[in-house]
């Protein structure tokens, strides 16, 4: 057995410290180590986007990220989107617009969308499509997801969609 390595990072604004096995990936570390079950394991090979989390604000696939590479960095997951009982505008728009059916892709979609809106508060429809181009959804046909992201963007800017 190789010894475990200490690891600390910020998870949704909270300091998090734990021990990881050498070679652990970030997705396992978040789910099993930190108990944040919001990032999902879909393909484990970089194809589906369900495991998308933000590392220092950029979307990354946690299934292909070595846990040891996030030492000291800032991780954001869907678990940190809501403010207490108040859903994030993206979550609210997804719920109202039926942008989630089985829901398996939703956490990854939300994080890819959040990274986009943080960078470009008024994205075009094409920019939304490009931003979620690495996230597969087998249920919705994507249109409700694109609509929900545009609705959330409009609301966050105080416009009507």
């Amino acid at each position, binding site marked *: 057995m*190789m010894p475990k*390595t200490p690891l600390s990072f910020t998870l949704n604004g909270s300091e998090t410290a734990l021990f990881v096995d*050498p*070679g652990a*990936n970030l997705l396992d570390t978040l789910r099993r180590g930190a108990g944040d079950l919001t990032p999902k394991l879909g393909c*484990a*090979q*970089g194809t589906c*986007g369900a495991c*998308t989390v933000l590392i220092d604000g*950029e*979307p*990354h*696939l946690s299934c*292909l*990220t*070595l846990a*040891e*590479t996030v030492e000291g960095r800032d991780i954001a997951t869907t678990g940190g989107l809501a403010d207490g009982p108040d859903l994030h505008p993206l979550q609210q728009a997804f719920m109202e617009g039926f942008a989630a059916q089985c829901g398996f892709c939703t956490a990854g979609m939300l994080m*890819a969308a959040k990274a986009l809106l943080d960078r470009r508060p008024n994205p075009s429809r094409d920019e939304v499509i*490009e*931003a979620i*181009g*690495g*996230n597969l959804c087998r249920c919705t046909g994507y249109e409700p997801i694109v609509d929900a992201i545009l609705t959330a963007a409009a609301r966050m800017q105080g416009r009507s969609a």
Partner: protein
Amino acid sequence: MRAFSYEKVKNPAGAAARAAEVANAKFVAGGTNLLDLMKLEIETPLHLIDVNGLGLDRIEGTDDGGLRIGTLVRNTALAADERVKRDYPVLTRALMAGASGQLRNKATTGGNLLQRTRCPYFYDTAMACNKRKPGSGCAAQAPGAFSRQLGVVGVSEACIATHPSDMAVAMRALDAVVETVMPEGETRAIPLADFHLLPGHTPEVETALKPGELITAVTLPAPVGGHQSYTKVRDRSSYAFALVSVALIRQPDGSGAVALGGVAPKPWRNAAADKLLPEGAKAVMAELMKDARPTEQNRYKIKLAERTLASALNEAKG
């Protein structure tokens, strides 16, 4: 996944020396290809050397007016760089045609050049594959095998896999050079043309890199201008590897450069074909495909490549 140990290194020569000294060690950069292959136990290193701390993440001008791209520059950053967008637009287009936003945020310049083939039989560890297990045979060339995505030219009896990178095809059209450092500390510069090797009898040997040799940067010569395009044909319109791709640089006088992706074990270009550009797509493709060795299933790629080039040339004349 097999257990492995992990270390971070601080300087490039030290990284190369460590890789030569530790048994079965590999570098890890973005990890988007290596970790995937490790999960499938296609790659089984015992030790990973993380090169992310080496500071090789800058894009800077060279003395001869070109650009030096550090190996750790992410595909996202490279595609967005103002100098690349203005002076080497074929590269930005190729990068944006590859993978997805999340992957491009991680994928590095050197890692992209070294990504391994997407041949389905290379990925299926139950199948014969000379590249994965030398001497075991090539399941992709068995009767009825699924070979429509695989290579048509530069391939061999031992292996017909393609190199999957989009970025490398644009860099080949731009005459890029790969800079490296060896375990003993010397550096060398390898033209991208000579960097990837054809399979011959040894498809497991894919590049000119020596054991432990670390890529430090890729350099581009001074901008050549012209109309530059990257046309990628794939089974769906985003997030898929190329069936055929064409990187084209065309000068107003009709001269230029063409490199193909999706058809060969390396970005496919030659000087004789470039010279034929003024004569049109048919002549160029006849030269590029003169030693083609397609299967029944992937013969279509030869015609597809010609039509893709014809359409790119039309647009360039536009």
